């Protein structure tokens, strides 16, 4: 078998133009899933600053001068973080919508419209993301 030629994965991705809806959905769902779990780890890491913060004085907490509040505020103050958050929202929304699509597929609902429901998820994700930009950016400047 070894003498025969293996055309490999590279070529697969070289063919992205020919991918079907279902394949894109699969790729996006994977990507968004990984981003989300990655975020979950970071998120908890950031939130963990709440542990030392709990040891801070009542006053410091009231004044928002504890480590936790400080960290969050400084992070939220960065435009980059705000933009990343919008991205996160997009990722989450797509994962949720496509996840719903997949759950329905598992129930045998809407199999015939699988490509349409994927496009719908994409469009909805876009719309929700755009609509939420003002809220997300608010106060960043």
């Amino acid at each position, binding site marked *: 078998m070894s003498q025969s030629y*293996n055309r490999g994965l590279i070529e697969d991705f070289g063919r992205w133009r020919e991918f079907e809806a279902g*394949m894109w959905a699969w790729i996006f769902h994977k990507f968004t899933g990984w981003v989300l779990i990655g975020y979950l780890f970071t998120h908890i890491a950031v939130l963990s600053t709440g542990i030392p913060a709990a040891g801070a004085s009542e006053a410091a907490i009231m004044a928002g001068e504890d480590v936790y509040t400080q960290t969050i505020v400084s992070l939220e103050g960065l435009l980059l973080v705000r933009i990343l958050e919008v991205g996160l929202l997009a990722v989450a929304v797509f994962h949720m919508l496509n996840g719903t699509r997949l759950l329905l597929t598992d129930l045998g609902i809407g199999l015939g419209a699988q*490509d349409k429901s994927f496009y719908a998820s994409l469009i909805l994700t876009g719309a929700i993301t755009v609509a939420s930009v003002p809220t997300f950016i608010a106060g960043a400047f």
Partner: protein
Amino acid sequence: MSTQIPKQTEESTETESEAAEPASKGEERRAEKRRRAAERREQRQEEEAEKAAADESTVELKVFRYDPQVEGKQEPRFDTFHVPFTKGMTVLDALMYARDTYDSSLTFRHSCRQAVCGSDAMFVNGGQKLACKTQISEMEEPVRVEPLPHAEVTKDLVVDMEHFYDQMEAVEPYFQTNEFPDGELEEQRQDRENREKIKMSTRCIWCGACMSSCNIAAGDNEYLGPAAINKAYRFAMDEREGEEIKQKRLEIIEQEHGVWRCQTQFSCTEVCPKDIPLTEHIQELKREAVKNNLKFW
């Protein structure tokens, strides 16, 4: 075309140096033949290009070529053929024409010419298609023809199907039941509804297009794949087999490389030349399996 020619020249020099040390008389003759074949090919391609320029109604085919044993073909390449177009011409017809008129070493499987033998699934313009069921007129030119992806290429458009057959045969693909009617000439009864239910699943012609299109099957060699799962479905849903056997069937498709591997990519369903709703069948089996297991939780 233009990109082809320099490559061709390279090949023939290669062949010549190879032929310098012939192993035997037969070898010598064969090497000589190969050299001449290469020359002929070059000439043919030039002639063809001219002809094509003169004649509007030809189809340009770009065909994947590879042969582990022939020097010029060990490095995969694409050959261009110009085939006169006739009404109703399929990709298979075009390939046969190219083979019979230009290059008899062009290799592909085919037999029935009517989408029942499942020999000629190939990758045409980036999609898994049955060549005999694909009208040339519906394809964008040049028509790029390649062997099925995710399978070892044996030669040209021929791929090794062994793994596919193994998967098909791994699901106990034969009817089993514990009770037959008494009379010798007595058939088992099956209501129309049940036959209708399994009808689509029985249409599979083992072409392997679905398996080739599935990314999961590509990544996980042990994944049963859509066709084999569909085969299992065909029996699991056949009421003539009875409940007991159905349990056994569910166990087979439930193993770790069975239905759970499917990520509902739908590409299998899209490419199946027999329009079998593969994803739907896989999903239905997943639900059956879950229902079945919930009882024990």
